[in-house]
């Protein structure tokens, strides 16, 4: 069944896909069982092809559900065993960063939900972000408030680059993004969120416009979308 070039190539693709799914498991679990799980997946795949002549959607759904269920279970078990703080490797930088970002999470999160419910991501004055921008415009302290709005997530992001940098140094450049994700997940999340919030605040309506254009027109005209939203 797997003698033909097409079958070997197709099989390699599934292999690569399942290997990527295995990255979601805790590292120690993956080190112990990853190879065996891959063997079992290969056998399942082969059997499915031999039985039905092709791989159906049901196969991928069952693989996906099995992976999601076991990934969540294994991470929960790991968290129970190590304790929440140790599992997430939380430090003072994370706490300060979290406090700095909390207002943004609440404001922009509720704004996003508001836009999602309304189904309109382009409306400039909708939700709390709209309220916030109007308040800034009419407050007379617009530059100061705007500076604070940009400075807080920037500070959170910069502070959380410190533990990331120390992890990189400690591993003598061998640390990949994947490893960083597992060793400093909270720092990485705060840096990412900080940069996103800076983009949203600094970009005013460009980000909602971009999301709206992507939803309505897809990724086909991405450059046109960027041009349209650049001056939004």
């Amino acid at each position, binding site marked *: 069944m797997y003698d033909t070039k097409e079958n070997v190539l197709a099989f390699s693709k599934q292999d690569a896909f399942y290997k990527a799914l295995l990255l979601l498991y805790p590292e120690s679990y993956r080190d112990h*069982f990853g190879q*065996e*799980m*891959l*063997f079992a997946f290969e056998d*399942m795949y082969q059997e499915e092809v031999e039985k039905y002549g092709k791989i159906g959607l049901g196969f991928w759904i069952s693989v996906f*559900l099995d992976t999601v269920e*076991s990934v969540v279970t*294994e991470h929960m078990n790991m968290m129970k065993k190590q304790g929440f703080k140790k599992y997430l490797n939380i430090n003072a930088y994370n706490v300060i960063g979290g406090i700095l970002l909390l207002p943004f999470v609440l404001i922009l999160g509720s704004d996003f939900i508001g836009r999602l419910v309304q189904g309109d991501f382009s409306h400039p004055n909708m939700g709390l972000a709209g309220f916030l921008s109007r308040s800034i415009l009419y407050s007379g302290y617009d530059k100061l408030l705007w500076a604070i709005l940009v400075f807080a997530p920037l500070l959170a992001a910069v502070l959380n680059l410190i533990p990331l940098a120390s992890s990189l140094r400690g591993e003598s450049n061998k640390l990949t993004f994947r490893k960083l994700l597992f060793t400093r997940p909270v720092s990485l999340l705060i840096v990412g969120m900080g940069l996103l919030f800076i983009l949203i605040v600094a970009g005013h309506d460009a980000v909602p416009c971009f999301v709206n254009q992507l939803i309505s027109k897809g990724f086909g005209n991405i450059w046109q979308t960027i041009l349209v939203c650049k001056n939004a």
Partner: protein
Amino acid sequence: MSKSKAFSNSNVSLTPQIFYILLSLAVKERHGYEIMKQVENDSSGKLKLGPGTLYGAIKRMLEEKLIVELDTDHSRRKYYKLTDKGRAIFSNELQRYEEAVEIAKERNLFANPSATKSAYV
């Protein structure tokens, strides 16, 4: 080993997955995919384990020392085998089922499940 002692030695609750894995390993050692297929056969297709669920259960069973990994030179795959503890717990579980089946037969519950009420009077 007495029944109660066997259970007190393990924190593993015998979920259907663990029960069927023990059942599949009771006859001979097997590797992961063989266990998956055997579990599916033994449960008449009612229980299908994916690699994630299977190895999650195997991990817990290894931690509880119900099974061990075998070192095999002839295969790249890992084979698993029941330990004495695993076999004792499995035997006790089977015995418990057997006793429950006997009671159910005595009370004629297989033919008439609604007889449950009157059987307890």
